């Protein structure tokens, strides 16, 4: 603040000298063209890392694209929908999309219910709030690879979970059981990512008006009634965000099936589209087919997001 109160006169005069070309420049670039200069690095970054690759991926999915030595001139012909046909005829692809469907059916409801409940609890209590908050956030700030290691340990055949369950332990064990591998992964991701959604709900709960709660009390509503009639509708915009982001996260599933179930096992029961993209695109050298999977995945995610917006996100 103190630094500002000393006016540097130089700047003032140079401004005066620029006065003539100013109006036209302003009309084209706005009042403060320096803003474009300040944003330029970020804009270039977004174009190089997001915009161009998206276009490139779509283009690649219509080519017979393969890796070639740098600088080599190769012919990569346009093949129309051939890559898409190949993808859609591959039962492994269908299986991986089905797996993500199972994943979302388990992960999304659990995430919405528990993150809202825990956020509501955190928002209500007076004591030990910091302790609870920190404990909920710890999995979120820790590397997937590190917590995957613990889950491998906990859910291994002779692991603690099965020891506690005793005769109730599933056979074959969790991560090698084709019916349980994907649900276990869904549970893991729910647990790991919960904190982020708790944060979103905590922010949303600040915006639910106190008067509504008071009005409900006057009408004789109990705490459960108030939760469902005031809190749940009050945080609906946040619920839409949670649904959307949980869906996007689910579509991105890679690390967990790669490490928890040793690459989508058993027999592809926990494979995911992104895992297939890695296997087909990088390991087997078919980036064109992998891109086609990616494009289909994006279209599906957009479709789900649209449905969620229609039913949850719309304003009253």
């Amino acid at each position, binding site marked *: 603040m103190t*630094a*500002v*109160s000393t*006016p540097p006169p130089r700047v003032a005069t140079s401004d005066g000298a620029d006065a003539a070309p100013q109006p036209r420049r302003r009309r*084209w670039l706005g*009042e*403060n063209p*320096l*803003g*474009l200069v300040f*944003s330029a*690095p*970020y*804009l270039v*970054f*977004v174009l190089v*890392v*997001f915009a161009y*690759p*998206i276009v490139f*991926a779509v283009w*690649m999915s219509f080519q017979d694209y393969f*890796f070639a030595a*740098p600088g080599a001139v190769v012919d990569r012909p346009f093949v129309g929908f051939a890559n898409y046909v190949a993808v859609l005829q591959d039962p492994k692809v269908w299986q991986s999309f089905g797996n993500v469907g199972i994943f979302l059916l388990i992960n999304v409801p659990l995430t919405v219910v528990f993150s809202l409940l825990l956020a509501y*609890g*955190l928002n209500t*209590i007076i004591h*030990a709030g910091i302790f609870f908050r920190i*404990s909920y*956030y*710890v999995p*979120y*700030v*820790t*590397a997937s*690879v*590190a917590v995957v*290691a*613990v889950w*491998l*340990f*906990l859910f291994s055949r*002779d692991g*603690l979970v099965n*020891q*506690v369950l005793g005769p109730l332990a599933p056979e074959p064990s969790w991560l090698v059981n084709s019916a349980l591998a994907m649900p276990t992964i869904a549970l893991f991701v729910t647990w790991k990512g919960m904190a982020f959604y708790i*944060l*979103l709900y*905590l922010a*949303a709960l600040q915006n639910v008006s106190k008067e509504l709660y008071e009005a409900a009390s006057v009408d004789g509503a109990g705490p459960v009634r108030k939760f469902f009639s005031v809190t749940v509708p009050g945080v609906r915009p*946040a619920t839409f965000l949670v649904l*959307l982001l949980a869906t996007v996260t689910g579509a*991105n599933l890679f*690390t967990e099936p*790669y490490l928890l179930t040793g690459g989508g096992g058993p027999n592809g029961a926990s494979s995911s589209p*992104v895992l297939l993209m*890695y296997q087909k*695109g*990088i390991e087997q050298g078919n980036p064109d087919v992998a*891109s086609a999977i990616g494009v289909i995945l994006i279209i599906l995610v957009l479709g789900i997001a649209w449905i969620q917006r229609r039913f949850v996100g719309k304003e009253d």
Partner: protein
Amino acid sequence: MSHPDLPVNTDTVAMVTERRRSRRSHNPNEAGRGRKVLLYVVLALGAFAFLFPFYYMVIGSLQTKVDPSVAGAFPDPANISGDNYVAINERINLVQGLVNSGIFTGGVLIGTIVFGVLAGYALAILHWRGRGVVFALALLVQVVPFQLLMIPLYVMIARDFGLADSYGGMILPFFINSTAVIIFRQYFVQLPKELWEAARIDGAGELRVLWSVALPLVRPAVLTTIILTFIGPWNEFLWPFLITKEAALQPLAVSLANFISTVAASTANPFGAMMAGAVVLSIPAIVLFLVFQRYFVSTDLGSSVKG
């Protein structure tokens, strides 16, 4: 640590609450108190579910001989040693891994703070053509599933730019965190407009306003951004895994993952060694989070996502 009892406890508390409520329903404070106890029990169960795996990680990393039994969840002085840390360090160079993770994360932090503050300031304070478009892009980027870009990015960065097995190639896709740009913008928008007007009336140029007025004020947002941005690259697995084949360049998350998926079985106590590696990988992020946790706040995040 008698966790199997905990669910029973909830039931008991619920029953007690119920009984109290029916007996003294004329006293609403009593009923409210029972509810509060129930609330704390639920929150404590949550805390247990979130923290126990970390406790178990530490215990497992210290067990000389792996003990997955229920008794093994409690520390046993006869079975505690640092052997697993030595074992994992023989397979993957922990220090080198930490240094690589640090360089990767540090590069992203520098890019995000320098260019994120610039962009956030421009988006919030300056009026220029295209401002709305850039802001919309920053919001849109948040919902683009990054993994879906991995194939084209891999072709571009590893093949076209020749940046495979380099820190630059690792850093590039994360260089400027869009969430940080939005947090900075949001922060600048909240500051009173008079500040900027006063500075300009005093004749300060835009660069000077940014340097002497905006930067000192934006410090809390920088701290929020550091903790938020740090956990991205530090914990990132897929991208550095794709781009680094050379073990000497791999961040710790990648080398630990390779250990888990390929060589763990060949060690004497594979789970112990995995836990030891997991502890080393977790500690920096958790410590940083504990130090900065009061800056890890919902309002910033919430408003940033809401735009």
